[in-house]
């Protein structure tokens, strides 16, 4: 059996991706998580001294806390199997990646295991976020000093 035949058999056996179903599930669950986050922003605006611009920080922290509980009890993994990107894209997915890596590597010790692996899954998001922020801000600074755009 050559490579081409193998590829044909593989294509035949692999079930087709249920695009529409996945999109609907990601939309509903992702939207629901954001709606819960929105309720938390109202909580912080009404009961604490946060404004609409500063409320993002405590909201993200609260969502990460909820993600920690769900991850610890093994519920976030089940949610992820249903929701796909709907549970991965919100900040709770970032929290889940960090928390699950921390728990999983606990047996290797607190320093080498937890400390060394906590960003194993989420590290790429931080690296690309920081690197892209650097280049975007640099380009904007150059464009502003050339007088092309304004702050």
């Amino acid at each position: 059996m050559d490579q081409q035949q193998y590829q044909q058999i593989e294509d035949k056996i692999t079930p087709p991706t249920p695009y529409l179903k996945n999109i609907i599930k990601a939309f509903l669950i992702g939207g629901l998580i954001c709606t819960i986050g929105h309720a938390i922003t109202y909580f912080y605006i009404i009961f604490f001294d946060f404004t609409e611009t500063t409320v993002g920080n405590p909201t993200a922290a609260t969502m990460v806390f909820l993600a920690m509980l769900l991850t610890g009890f093994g519920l976030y993994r089940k949610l992820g199997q249903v929701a796909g990107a709907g549970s991965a894209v919100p900040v709770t997915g970032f929290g889940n990646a960090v928390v699950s890596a921390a728990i999983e590597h606990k047996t290797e010790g607190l320093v080498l295991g937890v400390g060394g692996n906590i960003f194993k899954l989420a590290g790429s998001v931080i690296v690309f976020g920081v690197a892209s922020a650097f280049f975007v801000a640099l380009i904007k600074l150059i464009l502003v000093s050339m007088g092309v755009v304004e702050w």
Partner: protein
Amino acid sequence: MIFIDFLLAFVIGGLICVIGQLLMDVGKLTPAHTLSTLVVAGSILAGLGWYEPLIDLAGAGATIPITSFGNALTSGAIAEAEKHGWVGVLTGMFEVTSSGISSAIVFGFIAALIFKPKGKVN
């Protein structure tokens, strides 16, 4: 209208997740590639000044998805660059966005102390 406000958060947040799902299903990207792409997209939108209006419109629908992480890093860097020039590009980045990362580290560490590993995922 508080109902419209929540509906916008639901719809915009859901749509950003749909973009992620399309990158995974149609673009055949791994979850890590998908999330990195979304973060970079958030940075670029922040550079163009388009992410802030989205937050005004959708609230948590725009601040909860991971794109807002790129936006927060970039707008922090841009705000400091405006004040201090070249140095600000580096120093400003974590000005706004610290909470997502610091809370993830703190809660991740606490979780490692209290929860037991579930073993191999089957």
